[in-house]
């Protein structure tokens, strides 16, 4: 289980290989499915309910300590629910530009369904539990904090029903 909060970018291939190597070092060649999710910065932000505005940059703040704790709890929960053979969560903080990577989730399993579902689960929980906050700088005007979306909270209920 790898969890990192960092300002620098990540290399998806390198992270996949690290997880595969961890598994092969244990003498196992049982990985049959690797799913990755990458979240990136869009060039448009929601201005109000009906319109969008172009942004020049975004900054990400977090709660050091609690972030790592929440992400580790989420990963442990995913490992209880699915037969995973490795997970990585990397989230960037600091100043980012449109097109930049924000978050990476990787899940390894013997079969694809567990890997797909676990990656989806990890992202849903990350988005509603992990203490990160985005602030967007529009091309014109003052920077503003991104509002949480109800749809992210609703996404969680899918997983609660399965209990």
């Amino acid at each position: 289980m790898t969890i990192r909060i960092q300002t620098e970018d990540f290399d998806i291939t390198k992270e996949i290989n690290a997880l595969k190597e961890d598994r092969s070092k244990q003498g196992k060649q049982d990985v049959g499915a690797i799913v990755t999710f990458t979240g990136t910065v869009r060039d448009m932000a929601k201005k109000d309910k009906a319109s969008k505005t172009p942004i020049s940059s975004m900054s990400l703040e977090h709660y050091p300590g609690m972030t790592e704790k929440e992400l580790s709890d989420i990963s442990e929960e995913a490992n209880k629910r699915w037969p995973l053979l490795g997970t990585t969560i990397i989230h960037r903080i600091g100043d980012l530009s449109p097109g930049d990577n924000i978050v990476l989730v990787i899940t390894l399993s013997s079969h694809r369904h567990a890997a797909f579902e676990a990656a989806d689960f990890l992202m849903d929980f990350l988005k509603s539990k992990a203490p990160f906050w985005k602030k967007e700088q529009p091309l014109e005007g003052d920077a503003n904090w991104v509002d949480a979306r109800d749809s992210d909270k609703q996404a969680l209920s899918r997983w609660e029903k399965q209990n």
Partner: protein
Amino acid sequence: MKILYFAWVREKIGKSQEDLDVPNSVNTVADLITWLESKGPEYQAAFENKETINSAINQTHVDHQTPLNNASEIAFFPPVTGG
């Protein structure tokens, strides 16, 4: 007691953290918010819509009815927007 503020809660209060001696009458997170509001208009502005403010005790999400007990660290922040 160490109190931390993040994102626009931090901006409205004008500081990211402070150490405060909280009176014994403050039992829950909600009590603490009410007590902080008595400290000045910047706190009143930050906690204007209390239901939107999330709280954590010792780095774990809690609701406002949670007792503080002997919490060493309390945090207040807006709904999270990572990912």
